[in-house]
């Protein structure tokens, strides 16, 4: 395994202050998600030969989340743990398009107001219950009824079993991007008798839950009745996911050989390992998680667009990228992946410290001093970014206070509108429609910035109404222009390139995964998740 003395000394030293501060606080999100095992450094190839069955892999994770209830929000840690036990109805392919996965097919009617889901025969949940139309209806209905996640399927009017293997989903309005939602939590299926269960996950995936010790570890064993068993999946006999909250702790465990792979290594470790021929680094290749400051546009002084534009102009995003992300990320100017066909230059304000100071002076002359509080979690990546932002804003003449809170504790003030500005990592949908609710005026409390704009709503509605890329592009261009003009959010950087999985060279198949039709699955998605059925250990 990766034992490199000289480099390790540096990290032993680096760990000292880190551990003092964190003692269990769960690691800062300094990174978001993008590419493959190649990089600016060394390319570490997959192990030679064909995949072989057998072996048990211990995988380090930052958090195991809070449980497996698919009708409650699954936190990133829960998503990571659920991954090997789960097969969503839909998957994302290497072109960022949706593709049938557990579902045999999905077909819309002519105006996208009805979708028909066709299921595969003879597929069973881990407890032996059939994956049939009734099971899909039960899962989708439970999801829709949930007060905490049901908003995601708000346009769904009804879900009906047509026959044993066919489900009809009727919409209240055209929804062309609906299948993308089924690649995420709305498309997770659990055995109908276990819907709403939080301490067990009886899914359809390649691995079956063996033991969960909350906050410590999760062990999963091979599903011998896996529906893709004919293809030889899964290869591994068992997976143990071990919670090691600190980035350096995971790195140390990896170097000692206690774990064979781990996620969320952090930007400096990614840089080191990209130059190390003994370690493979796979980086996220899909989605667009952003470091972003959400501004409360319903409360002074941020209800004035001059102040919001001043805050944007005051921030030098390149400095953030260079100093806090080791230069691995790209500055962001919207929530849309810069490689997406929908990404445009919408005129998002550039770094202009003088312009920022002028706007603040103009506001202060007319209204009064600009004072605001920036909420941020007390984790490393967030704390550092908040301090850098506050420095920029102070230079522009803004009186900024940083309020540090525990991870998760920033949510309550935001949904209750008791905040000025909040720094967090958000969004991340492969398709822009996945983030509809956070910008549309119908989003209610989930429209965090409280910005209400007819043009913004029209753009979002247009984007989801059709699969015609030209029309969709038109819709999302409207959205990006409004967001650039009104700046309810300050985009910092796209975090995709710093969401990664580190593995020993003997581990194969983390990327690329294969879809049931033989095509290639999108690499790491939704942070750093991948299809576990493809993973194998070379002997």
């Amino acid at each position, binding site marked *: 395994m990766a034992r490199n003395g000289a480099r390790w000394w540096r990290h032993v030293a680096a760990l000292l202050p880190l551990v003092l501060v964190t003692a269990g606080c769960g690691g800062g999100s300094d990174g978001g998600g993008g590419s493959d095992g190649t990089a600016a450094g060394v390319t570490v190839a997959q192990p030679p030969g064909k995949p072989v069955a057998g072996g048990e892999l211990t995988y380090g994770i930052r958090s195991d989340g*809070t449980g497996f209830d698919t009708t409650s929000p699954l936190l990133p840690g829960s998503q990571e743990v659920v991954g090997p036990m789960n097969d969503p109805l839909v998957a994302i392919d290497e072109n960022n398009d949706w593709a049938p996965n557990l579902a045999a097919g999905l077909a819309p009617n002519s105006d996208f107001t009805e979708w028909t889901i066709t299921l595969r025969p003879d597929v069973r949940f881990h407890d032996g219950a059939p994956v049939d139309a009734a099971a899909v209806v039960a899962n989708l209905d439970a999801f829709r009824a949930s007060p905490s996640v049901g908003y995601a399927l708000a346009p769904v009017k009804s879900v009906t079993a047509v026959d044993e293997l066919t489900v009809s989903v009727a919409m209240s309005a055209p929804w062309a991007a609906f299948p993308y939602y089924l690649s995420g939590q709305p498309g997770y299926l659990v055995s109908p008798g276990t819907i709403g269960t*939080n301490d067990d996950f009886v899914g359809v995936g390649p691995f079956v839950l063996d033991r969960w010790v909350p906050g410590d570890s999760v*062990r999963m064993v091979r599903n011998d009745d896996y529906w893709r068993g004919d293809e030889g999946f899964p290869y591994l006999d068992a997976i143990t996911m071990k919670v090691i909250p600190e980035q350096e702790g995971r790195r140390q465990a990896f170097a000692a050989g206690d774990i064979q792979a781990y996620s969320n290594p952090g930007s400096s470790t990614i840089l080191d390992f990209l130059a190390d021929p003994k370690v493979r680094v796979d980086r996220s290749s899909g989605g667009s998680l952003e470091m972003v400051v959400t501004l409360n546009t319903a409360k002074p002084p941020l209800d004035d667009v001059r102040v919001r534009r001043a805050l944007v102009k005051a921030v030098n995003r390149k400095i953030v990228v260079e100093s806090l992300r080791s230069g691995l990320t790209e500055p962001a100017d919207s929530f849309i992946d810069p490689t997406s066909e929908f990404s445009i230059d919408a005129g998002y304000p550039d770094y202009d410290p003088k312009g920022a100071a002028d706007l603040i002076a103009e506001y202060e002359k007319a209204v009064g001093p600009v004072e605001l509080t920036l909420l941020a979690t007390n984790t490393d990546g967030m704390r550092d970014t908040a301090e850098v932002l506050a420095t920029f804003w102070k230079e522009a003449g803004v009186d900024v206070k940083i309020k540090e809170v525990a991870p998760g504790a920033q949510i309550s003030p935001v949904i209750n509108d008791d905040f000025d500005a909040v720094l967090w990592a958000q969004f991340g949908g492969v398709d822009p429609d996945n983030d509809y609710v956070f910008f549309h005026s119908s989003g209610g409390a989930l429209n965090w910035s409280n910005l209400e704009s007819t043009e913004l709503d029209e753009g979002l509605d247009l984007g989801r109404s059709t699969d015609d890329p030209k029309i969709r592009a038109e819709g999302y261009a409207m959205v990006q222009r409004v967001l650039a003009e009104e700046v309810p959010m300050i985009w910092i950087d796209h975090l995709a390139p710093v969401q990664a999985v580190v593995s020993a060279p003997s581990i194969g198949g983390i990327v690329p995964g294969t879809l049931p039709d033989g095509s290639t699955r999108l690499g790491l998605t939704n942070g750093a998740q991948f299809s576990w059925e493809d993973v194998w250990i070379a002997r």
Partner: protein
Amino acid sequence: MRNVGRLVLRLAFVVFVVSLLSFWLLDAAPGDPATARVGVNATPEVVAEARAELGLDDPFLVRYARWAGDVLHGDLGESYRTPGTTTWSLLATALPNTVLLLVYAQILALAIAVPLAVTAARRPGSRWDRTTSAVAFGFFALPTFVLGVYLSYFLAVRWGLLPAVATDLPGVFEDPVENVRQLALPSLTLGLTLVAVYLRLLRSDLISTLQQDYILLARARGLSDRRILWRHALRPSSMTLLTAVGLNTGALIGGAVIIEVLFAINGMGRLTVNAVFASDYPVVQGAVLLFSLAFVLANFVVDVLYVAIDPRVRR
């Protein structure tokens, strides 16, 4: 017997006060358990419902009384953070690991400190005495997390002798060898920081004891230095050491929090830290209750041991 009864009453009072204070502190702490329960995207209405369901709108004393009543019936409640999981099941999984960690650390500390103290006390001021003290204080001066990082680097990463983290810690009765192996590094880290204290206390007491008349008599009778030290001086010199062992249990619990995070041990410390950050009040309360009970019981055991070691205490 009456003394023991009084002691038990006093201990119960301490536990009551600690639990009440911790309940109050948690109540004043930032973070909303209702939000922790319903999750990231919940609307204010849903959060309000959760607050009502959890009884968080009731007055402080009502909530404390309800919690204390449930505890007396053996019910520590359900975790807010991981619904469907009882607090007791989380504590029951974590507690043995922490107890073992503390026990191993104390055993290691005593196993290193006692022989060093005895040999150092034999010739106070000698090069051996000065060297052992200096090295022990070196470990004492290092914060546990720093020591842990360095030990982990050498013993796990560089030499591959021990695991850097407890990836799959078996029960001590299930696989005692593996249990000890996986807890060796954290126990050593924790134990080494105690050696200096135990060494200096025992050494001082031993030197003082060696000035006693009965030791002079023993020497006059021709008993060897080794026999005098181990058979006649060590036991009466152990009272202060024993007190320190009891008091250090509290300090060790604090140290265990960091050690458990550093070495990824599913113990009480890590569980508590995670629960605090997640506003998982039932788990925090349960853990604080167990911590205070453990601390109080450890000192109770020390009090009883005084009596066993020194018959004069009985009078």
